[in-house]
């Protein structure tokens, strides 16, 4: 049986004592409807080993400036809401610990290549519309729910072929990092292309030809120059760059 020792008030104080470490959090403030140019507000924020950038932003929002616009929800890298540029790279704020940034100054800005709504919040309408364009669902004549059919069985090997790409949380970090998205407003983007591969690689799906027709254009799959930045920033290991190149394999006839 484990012995229980009372914790002295001194020890209690030591454990709850706030960290001496602090950083300067620079937050981009810009309301396109009111302001002329973005400005940066600076706040000193103390942090612990486990403090995330989102924690720091929310502390500033709660105690210093309530007007800061930030979108977040799950706080555990599952909803894809809190994507932003952190020290120059697109990251999820809830998935980025301040201690891992190794910097005394943490600068947060809204994601690139998206329309800005306010401060750190960007609009996802275009990304969602390109996502819908590639038919992000199983396309086939029959259905699992119609009478006379059974569930479409898959072997573990069949699942392995697409499960990596099914992890996409639509956070938009890949589109923000993509150099083609940076200059081509009509490029479909790595998020949608990786999802096209996810459904084409699914052996239950019969919509391969339809999807390939949609993406087989200059501003579609051929706009990708394989810089790999999308895969570099993906917080879920989806690896959009790999999906896009495998998809090209289908289009070029190297894969069936």
């Amino acid at each position, binding site marked *: 049986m484990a012995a229980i020792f009372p914790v002295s008030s001194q020890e209690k104080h030591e454990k709850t004592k706030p960290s001496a470490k602090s950083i300067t959090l620079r937050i981009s403030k810009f309301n396109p409807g009111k302001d002329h140019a973005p400005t940066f507000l600076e706040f000193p924020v103390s942090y612990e080993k486990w403090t995330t950038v989102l924690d720091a932003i929310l502390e500033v929002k709660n105690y210093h400036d309530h007007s800061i616009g930030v979108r977040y929800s799950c706080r555990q890298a599952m909803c894809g809401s809190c994507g932003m540029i952190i020290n120059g790279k697109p990251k999820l704020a809830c998935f980025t610990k301040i201690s891992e940034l190794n910097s005394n100054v943490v600068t947060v800005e*809204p994601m690139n290549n998206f329309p800005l709504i306010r401060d750190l919040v960007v609009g996802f309408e275009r990304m969602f519309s390109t996502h819908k364009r590639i038919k992000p669902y199983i396309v086939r004549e029959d259905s699992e729910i119609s009478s006379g059919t059974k569930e479409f069985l898959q072997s573990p090997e069949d699942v*392995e072929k697409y499960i990596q790409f099914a992890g996409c949380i639509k956070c938009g970090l890949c589109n923000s990092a993509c150099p083609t998205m*940076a200059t081509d407003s009509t490029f479909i983007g790595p998020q949608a292309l990786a999802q096209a591969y996810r459904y084409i690689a699914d052996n239950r799906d019969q919509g391969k030809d339809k999807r390939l027709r949609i993406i087989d254009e200059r501003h579609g799959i051929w706009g990708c120059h394989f810089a*790999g*930045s999308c895969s*570099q920033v993906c917080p879920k290991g989806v690896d959009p760059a790999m999906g896009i190149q495998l998809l090209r394999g289908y289009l070029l006839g*190297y894969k069936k």
Partner: protein
Amino acid sequence: MEKDRKEGIRGMANPGRYGIERVAYWLMRITGLGLLAYFIGHIYETSSLLDGKAAWNSMLELTQTTEGHIFLALVIGMCVFHTGNGIRLMIAEAGFGFGKARRPDYPYTPSSLNMKNKLCIYVSIGLAALAMMYGLGVMYDV
């Protein structure tokens, strides 16, 4: 709502923040534009033949200076890197060299940014540097 917060051409700056693959993308663009400029200049240079031997020789003399040698060495480097990296891209963009898609495990290491690809980029840069040194050696009779 503001129009797109496009990174634009600024996205080309500081390519190192996204790793060697983004540097290769940046170099591929720069060397491509450089080779295009050289190609246009080369047509202009060779067209001087139409004006006779003297005009051709005076055009050739432009490349016999230190600046001309450095320029030609850069052209050699651009050509070798663009070729080496171009072959890597042609193979990769046909879907080869990534292995199979598999369930990702934390800390997610993307297969598309694997060592084979990185090595090809470093080899392309290395070969370009070697070719430039060889070219300078020939031009300076070392």
